[in-house]
């Protein structure tokens, strides 16, 4: 046999299809005529012989098809099926559009969420061999992961053998001189090998060289791509130029590539080498850096951790004052960057997957209803010689077409949803999400879309086939056997509806729990009055405000000036605003109590006399600061209730003294008051002990101003900024936000908020789809049972009984669906418990509300068909047959 000739002949026939058919027809007509002739010769009358010949010969069309399939290419029949399917869809545009719309929404949302999860969690970090990069940090009694001190870093770097390079970064900010005034700009200080460790090369100019970060070295800076575009108009001659930060000239040595991102310092515009040790870095006990290490080949994470722990233990012996109890943590860098968003991303991905499933099941249900109404068509085709396989293929083709159209539309929806979601993210949040620019349709997304398209299409194709395989062609033709096929369909459709209802319950419970968590989060007692509070961060240029007296004078002037603004009730100044983080801590020692060098970690805040009254923090004992608590007086502090409970159980802390571990005379400070717990850390963080020192006794260049207003706190923000600049135009200001905005943009609030809104949205869609599905099933079954209902009523059934009969069916489906759903939902909620706050996975309230909502919706959905059933006119119903 010659395969080449075979294909050539087959292809040749493709262009002579017409001739092929006429020849075949003629040939078969000849055959029939010969049979006829033979029969007549045998003595049969001519008329009967013609019929008999035709009968013997069989279905001519079918025969022609058989021959055709031999010469035809497979795709020709596929095209036939596709053409027919398209005609089917066009014939019933309402059905087609509904199905495509539902699929598109399910697909679109799912792919869009996947794109976010992909960018945030799945794609590897954009560094060289990112899985060899480790986050290296210290850990203490209270903090699982705390900053490294510079002195410790230098020792760790010198002593370790696990890392081929170990570098550090720390947060920083500078006042940038711009034509429109001074502007505070976020930046980062890094050791010289930082970018080499990450494997990032500058797009322009050079990287920092070894030794560039030594104290006393030249002032150098690298720009991020964003800053280069925004502030320097993408000028290619920027390398070598200088930029003024905090009044000092820094030479630009390089510009980082566009793809560069570093989530822990996501908003940094400038990268500056460590250079001189700042005040904090002169002490081993002051921690302000984080490490990044690249593991040497063959070294495991565990081995590195063990070595760093050993080094930390050695340093603890060498420097007990600062290092006692300080251990080490080594974990993959991705854990730090991806870890926080992982739970929310996985939850959203799962939720969008459920939504897609509901959408597919719903469309499968629609197809089922349609296949039912096409029973006669199928029967006719079967009678005309279509094999079951061919009819099944027709349905698969239709499902496939529908699936593909839905998925294509879904792709468009996905694109739109992605853009919509990205634009919905507030700017303040977006700059902390550097992965956002990677969100889009890449090959990951294409693969994912293809996979879910195949699964969804498969589901759509399988349902009517399952249904068809149970159907007898002859029965269907007679169309009088509603009970049998109807019952089967009822079961099939009902099963799908139960699945849909359970899925909807899972989403609704998830939405309920997340909403409740968010609600609980907002209800957290913050310990102060967060309404009518406006805040702004102020940076004093270090060159102009070097001496403490200058800084104190500035605060007094700021306070005086802002207080005189119309609508301002009071003004307070602090080193850190509340609800930010349990950070900027201090190790304390209670004078007169046993002490063994342990690190008693407490939040430390420096506040002016107006601050605590402005917050309306509750004074429990003693007094607050006044204008006399200045550097010339002995140090005073106020503690929060938590600190009092923890370190002075059953005692009156007023008059007691707190100091640092070595009892330095300078560090001695007397407790003058106890205030209620103002929440300094995030809303879902633990409440920490906090000490408030007098800002006038330990001033700094960075402060935050809180202003209590009489009226709308948002309206006063612009005049607040203006007034600050009137005090001194060289002061930098940023973060003009109301306290409410401040709280709503904290990481925990944002995560809970986003999760809540998205899952609520999914759940809403799911509820609608599930209820529509239930309606479809009940309405269909009522339609099928019209005659039965007519008979029942003719025999004396009351309308109430008919209502009951229909509603009972819907009721059962709902009960089963809700039952299964609740069980799955509790399981799912336990898996996602990381996202819950102040609410348990089996929260009775949420579960019962969901059950009631779904029951009510189901009742409403089945009431309409029940009503229709009860209004059946028995005479008409019986006459329809």
């Amino acid at each position, binding site marked *: *046999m*010659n395969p080449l*000739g*075979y294909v050539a*002949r*087959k292809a040749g*026939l493709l262009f002579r299809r017409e001739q092929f058919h006429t*020849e*075949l027809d*003629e*040939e*078969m007509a*000849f*055959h029939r*005529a*010969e*049979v006829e002739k033979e029969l007549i010769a045998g003595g049969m009358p001519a008329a009967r012989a013609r019929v008999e010949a035709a009968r013997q*010969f*069989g279905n001519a069309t*079918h*025969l022609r098809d*058989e*021959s055709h*399939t*031999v*010469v035809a290419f497979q795709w020709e029949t596929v095209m036939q099926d596709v053409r027919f399917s398209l005609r089917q869809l066009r014939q019933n545009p309402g059905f087609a559009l509904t199905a495509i719309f539902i699929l598109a929404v399910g697909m679109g949302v799912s792919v869009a969420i996947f794109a976010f999860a992909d960018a945030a969690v799945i794609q590897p970090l954009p560094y060289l061999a990112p899985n060899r990069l480790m986050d290296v940090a210290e850990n203490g009694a209270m903090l699982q992961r705390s900053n490294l001190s510079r002195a410790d870093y230098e020792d760790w770097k010198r002593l370790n053998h696990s890392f081929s390079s170990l570098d550090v970064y720390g947060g920083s900010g500078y006042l940038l001189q711009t034509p429109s005034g001074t502007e505070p700009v976020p930046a980062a200080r890094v050791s010289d090998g930082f970018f080499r460790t990450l494997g990032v090369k500058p797009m322009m100019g050079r990287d920092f060289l070894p030794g560039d970060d030594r104290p006393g070295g030249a002032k150098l800076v690298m720009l991020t791509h964003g800053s280069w575009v925004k502030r320097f108009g993408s000028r290619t001659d920027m390398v070598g130029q200088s930029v003024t930060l905090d009044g000092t000239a820094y030479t630009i040595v390089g510009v980082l590539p566009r793809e560069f991102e570093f989530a822990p310092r996501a908003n940094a515009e400038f990268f500056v080498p460590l250079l001189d040790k700042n005040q904090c870095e002169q002490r081993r006990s002051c921690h302000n850096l984080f490490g990044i290490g690249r593991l040497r080949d063959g070294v495991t994470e565990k081995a590195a951790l063990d070595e760093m722990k050993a080094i930390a233990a050695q340093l603890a012996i060498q420097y007990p004052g600062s290092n006692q109890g300080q251990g080490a943590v080594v974990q993959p860098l991705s854990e730090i960057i991806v870890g926080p968003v992982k739970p929310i991303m996985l939850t959203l991905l799962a939720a969008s997957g459920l939504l897609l499933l509901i959408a597919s099941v719903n469309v499968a249900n629609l197809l089922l209803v349609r296949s039912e109404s096409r029973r006669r068509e199928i029967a006719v085709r079967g009678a005309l010689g279509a094999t079951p396989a061919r009819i099944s293929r027709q349905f698969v083709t239709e499902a496939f077409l529908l699936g593909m159209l839905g998925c294509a539309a879904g792709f468009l929806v996905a694109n739109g949803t992605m853009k919509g979601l990205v634009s919905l993210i507030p700017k303040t949040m977006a700059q902390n999400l550097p992965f956002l620019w990677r969100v889009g349709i890449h090959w990951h997304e294409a693969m994912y879309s293809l996979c879910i398209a195949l699964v969804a299409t498969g589901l759509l194709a399988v349902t009517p086939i399952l249904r068809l395989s149970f159907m007898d062609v002859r029965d269907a033709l007679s169309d009088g056997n509603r009970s049998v096929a109807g019952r089967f369909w009822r079961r099939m459709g009902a099963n799908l509806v139960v699945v849909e209802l359970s899925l909807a319950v899972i989403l609704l419970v998830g939405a309920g729990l997340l909403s409740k968590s968010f609600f609980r989060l907002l209800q957290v007692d913050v310990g102060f009055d967060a309404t009518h509070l406006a805040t702004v961060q102020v940076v004093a240029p270090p060159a102009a405000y070097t001496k403490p007296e200058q800084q104190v004078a500035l605060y007094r002037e700021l306070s005086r000036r802002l207080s005189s603004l119309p609508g301002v009730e009071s003004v307070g100044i602090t080193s850190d605003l509340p609800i930010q983080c349990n950070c900027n801590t201090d190790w304390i020692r209670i004078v007169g109590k046993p002490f063994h060098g342990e690190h008693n970690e407490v939040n430390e805040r420096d506040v002016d006399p107006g601050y605590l009254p402005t917050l309306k923090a509750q004074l429990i004992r003693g007094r607050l600061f006044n204008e006399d608590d200045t550097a010339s007086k002995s140090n005073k502090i106020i503690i929060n209730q938590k600190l009092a409970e923890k370190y002075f159980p059953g005692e009156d802390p007023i008059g007691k003294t707190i100091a640092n571990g070595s009892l330095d005379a300078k560090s001695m400070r007397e407790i003058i008051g106890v205030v209620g717990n103002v929440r300094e850390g995030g809303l879902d963080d633990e409440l920490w002990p906090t000490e408030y020192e007098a800002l006038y006794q330990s001033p700094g260049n960075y402060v935050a101003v809180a202003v209590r207003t009489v009226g709308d706190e948002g309206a006063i923000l612009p005049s607040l900024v203006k007034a600050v600049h009137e005090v001194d135009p060289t002061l930098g200001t940023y973060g003009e936000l109301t306290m409410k905005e401040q709280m709503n943009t904290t990481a925990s609030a944002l995560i809970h908020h986003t999760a809540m809104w998205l899952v609520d949205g999914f759940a809403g869609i799911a509820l609608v789809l599930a209820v529509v599905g239930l309606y479809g099933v009940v309405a269909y079954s009522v339609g099928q049972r019209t005659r039965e209902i007519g008979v029942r009523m003719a025999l004396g059934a009351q309308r109430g009984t008919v209502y009951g009969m229909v509603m009972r069916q819907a009721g059962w489906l709902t009960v089963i669906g809700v039952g299964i759903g609740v069980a799955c939902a509790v399981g799912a909620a336990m898996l996602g418990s990381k996202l819950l706050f102040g609410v348990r996975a089996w929260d009775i309230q949420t579960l019962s509300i969901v059950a009631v909502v779904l029951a009510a919706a189901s009742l409403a959905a089945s009431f309409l068909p029940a009503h229709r059933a009860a209004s059946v006119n028995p005479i008409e119903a019986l006459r329809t047959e």
Partner: protein
Amino acid sequence: MKRPDLLPGTLDMLVLKTLARAPLHGYGIAQSIKRSSDDVLTVEEGSLYPALQRLLLQGWVKAEWKMTDTNRRARFYTLTAAGRKQLGVEVSQFEQMITAIGRVLSEA
């Protein structure tokens, strides 16, 4: 009475063998097989014409329109050289099969 079905896969061979004697049209092939087998084997038209298309595509037979004895136009099929070779292959395969089946059946 139900006549036995053709053994699967033997139709092509029977058609080739029939054509090896003389070129024939479709009806003639069916008749010839029926006659040669003493009415035991009937070739269904539903399988004959697809089989002929298959043989044509394989290049084992050729077809041309000619006039019959009764002066009607009919499509006559002729065995090609490749077809003759194929017939040999199929016959020997079939004989091997029959011998093998016979051996199994004759085992007591």
